[in-house]
């Protein structure tokens, strides 16, 4: 049966142009994505909830456009990782504990997306409470990688990455606490942004590690990523940790030449453990950037080897505290609905915060975090941005690391240091390795998303199309 697609691109540049020219309506686009979900999601399992009011919202958006309203995302369908509180729409965090929880309020980011005219398509699958790197910790079934159904899409924003990759949504919002946007973006051949910590409000996003959680999104291309950030970026009075730096129109600043830009390669990342083909492809990406006029130098982050250990002290501590409210007294199911990974992290965190252990673990980890922040600050004295492979390996098979939590944790060694430092990072597809997707990440100074968007955008243009076929 031949299925007619009204859109063949997920790029917001194309979608918005057609909407603005009235070549298509929001109802038509929304319907297309809903149809794609109907057609593909039984194989991918990217969605936990599809918004049954999506078409109504699309109709409202069309009416608004008819009246001359101009929202930046007016009529654009968007999926949300199921940790974004959505008023009246079930929000599970991927856990049975919250399988019936309907929030009475919208997260700030959701509010901003709605104000900009976005249409909520549905809520995407994830590792329960965002704990995981493969999507396999979801209580609502694993998500499959659209480029290899037997492989993981990466996690924890597994559903968001798989949804955009397989054309079930043009944009899917996610969260990145230790790589949870960038790793799945890299595994699914899409663009994933982890903004600066404090660039996008955390208010209403179910917390994992409060001092790490970065609220970002997955898109088809860099332009779309920049456009969405200019909507979600916010100095939010409801989130005291949002930075006092003004939000800019990131997408309007793209396209500046990048000759003379200085990029750093992290010495500590370029050793054993890095897949040889990825290493080779990363070399090619560097060549592309040099051809664009960039100067590439080696830099050192002396304490970066401690990043994963530090991360797995600090984050479980915050997790153990944040999950304390999931007691089934006011909402949700009782605590016996927690599954293994959440219990593991609650126990580790409870232990490291206990009196007598606090100084040896939590406090010491805080000091190491400070050293890692200093490492990044020092590096940024000599370079404009840092580049690195997003993952040391291509997507791994479902089940491969399920019983080896430690090896699972190590999937994030190239992504979690940026969360410790709170710096922005953008993962963009590079040439496939082993015929599977892989990504390169661009890391910037705090609140300097403009620089990495611009470099990544130039790279994306120069790189050209990626030769990979969806398996659905």
């Amino acid at each position, binding site marked *: 049966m031949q299925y007619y697609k009204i859109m063949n691109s997920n790029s917001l540049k194309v979608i918005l142009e057609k909407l603005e020219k009235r070549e298509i309506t929001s109802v038509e686009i929304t319907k297309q994505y809903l149809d794609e979900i109907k057609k593909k999601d039984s194989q991918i399992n990217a969605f936990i909830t599809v918004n049954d009011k999506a078409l109504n919202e699309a109709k409202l958006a069309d009416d608004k456009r008819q009246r001359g309203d101009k929202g930046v995302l007016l009529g654009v369908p968007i999926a949300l990782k199921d940790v974004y509180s959505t008023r009246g729409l079930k929000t599970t965090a991927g856990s049975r504990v919250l399988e019936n929880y309907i929030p009475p*309020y919208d997260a700030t980011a959701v509010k901003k997306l709605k104000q900009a005219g976005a249409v909520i398509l549905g809520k995407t699958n994830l590792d329960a409470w965002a704990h995981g790197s493969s999507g396999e910790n979801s209580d609502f079934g694993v998500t499959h990688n659209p480029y290899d159904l037997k492989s993981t899409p990466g996690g924890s924003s597994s559903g968001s990455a798989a949804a955009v990759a397989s054309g079930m949504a043009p944009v899917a919002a996610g969260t990145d606490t230790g790589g949870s946007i960038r790793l799945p973006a890299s595994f699914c051949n899409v663009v994933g942004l982890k903004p600066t910590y404090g660039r996008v409000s*955390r*208010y209403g996003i179910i917390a994992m590690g409060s001092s790490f959680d970065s609220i970002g999104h997955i898109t088809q291309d860099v332009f779309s990523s920049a456009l969405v950030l200019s909507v979600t970026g916010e100095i939010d009075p*409801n989130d005291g940790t949002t930075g006092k730096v003004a939000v800019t129109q990131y997408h309007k600043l793209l396209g500046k030449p990048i000759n003379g830009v200085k990029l750093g390669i992290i010495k500590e990342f370029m050793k054993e453990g890095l897949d040889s083909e990825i290493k080779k492809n990363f070399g090619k990406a560097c060549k592309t950037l040099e051809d664009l006029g960039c100067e590439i130098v080696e830099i050192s982050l002396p304490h970066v080897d401690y990043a994963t250990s530090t991360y797995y002290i600090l984050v479980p501590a915050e997790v153990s*505290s944040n999950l*304390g409210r999931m007691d089934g007294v006011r*909402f949700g199911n009782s605590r016996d609905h927690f599954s293994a990974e959440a219990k593991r992290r609650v126990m580790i965190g409870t232990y490291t915060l206990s009196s007598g252990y606090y100084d040896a673990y939590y406090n010491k980890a805080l000091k190491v975090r400070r050293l890692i922040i200093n490492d990044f600050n020092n590096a940024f004295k000599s370079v404009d941005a840092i580049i690195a492979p997003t993952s040391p390996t291509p997507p791994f098979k479902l089940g491969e690391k399920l019983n080896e939590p430690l090896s699972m944790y190590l999937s994030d060694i190239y992504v979690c240091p940026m969360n410790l430092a709170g710096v922005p990072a953008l993962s963009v597809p590079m040439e496939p390795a082993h015929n599977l997707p892989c990504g390169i990440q661009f890391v910037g100074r705090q609140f300097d998303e403009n620089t990495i968007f611009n470099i990544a955008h130039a790279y994306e243009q120069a790189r050209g199309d990626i030769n990979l076929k969806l398996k659905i």
Partner: protein
Amino acid sequence: MNNYQPVIGLEIHVELSTVSKMFCSCPADWFGKEPNTLTCPVCLGLPGALPVANRQAIEWVVKLGLAMRCGINMVSKFDRKHYFYPDLPKGFQISQYDVPFCHGGSYDLLDNKLEKLKTINIKRIHMEEDTGKLIHKNGKSYVDFNRCGVPLVEIVTEPDFENSTQVKQFLEELHTLVLYLNISDANMEEGSMRLEPNISIRKVQGSTLHVPSKKNITLNAVHGMWSDLPNYKVEVKNINSFKFAVQAIDYEIERQIEILKRGDIPPQETRGFDPNIHRTVSQRTKEEAHDYRYFPEPDIPPITLENSYVEGVKADLPELPQQKLRRYIKTYKLRYQDATILISDSKLFNFFEQVSGHLITGHKTEELKDENMYSMVANLIINKKISIDQPIDSFVAEAVKKLKPVETDEEELVRAIDWVINENANAVLNYKQGNINSIMFLVGQVMQKMKGKADAQLVRSKLEEALS
């Protein structure tokens, strides 16, 4: 046996009367409201909700700290204190652990000559949030979250009190201080001021010293007494009046001394006060003590106070109760007791100050002359001899009338005295035989004869003259 010395410290919670709650914009005025009507995602601890600190509350805790001569931490932070209880929706209370807003203050207890009786050291004053309230009804339990997140200040003293009298004086004066600062209604019945004394006993003399811990004991060479603190303490909860605080402390002192006399050590525990039997009852022992797993609240960045800000708060402090007490006694020559009563009731002292101002500006002082005039005005107010529920003008008019010295017709007075002496031979005889009290009877008779138009003091001295 005077060798047992009580060691008492206090933890006092004061609910601030800010408009909104500590970390959200819900109204903080929870008392008597329909349950769960003053709530939002933040104070209900819904997933994803974040706290934002209330500036007013922070200013007020700094104000209280400055009034209690505390040091102010220019960089402070909040911490999470974890425990599970149904009235605590987040599973932790936002409090302050190692860097409270205020630390190291002191408060002087004064005697009736305004001499320093005792200095109570203030260990710290920190900011936290109140919990919800459990309501048990018809065999069911309900939670009301209206109070959840209401700003709460905790004042922690050093264990400097030696008896319940000092504690009572401190609490009463703190209550007044808080009202002066206008930061809380400090209403005991509504629970906006809560007291938790901790009590232990040390032995202070003799070679048969029995102190539980071997370490930390040092003999103070100057005073020749053991100056360490006992290594146990008993915390008492559920106290909602100053009277109960006194009862609980007195009961504990007696109970613990008895245990020590038996050669035992009172167990470290938390006890609750039962107002029906005036006793404390064991609630929780040390073994069951919580590990609160404190760590810095990641949702609220550290709070930096500017020097100029703290100086501004300091400059805006009102006249404090002890300053007012000194002024009333020095400037107005009030008696200590009267001054104490006046300064602890804003309605009374505001009225007194207006009347005093009126007396001076209206030159009534000339008319009254008496140097005890202010003292007499204070007396009129305190003892309600003239209603203060009237305009100042009419109060002053009434007071002047009452206090103005009576013009005495001295010729008539001489005649009246002669007449009374003649008519009351018995009383005169009694007086001359040494019954001093008889003079008052005779004064009364003269006053009656004068139809009250005589100055009693003058009558008395003239009578005494005539009888001598």
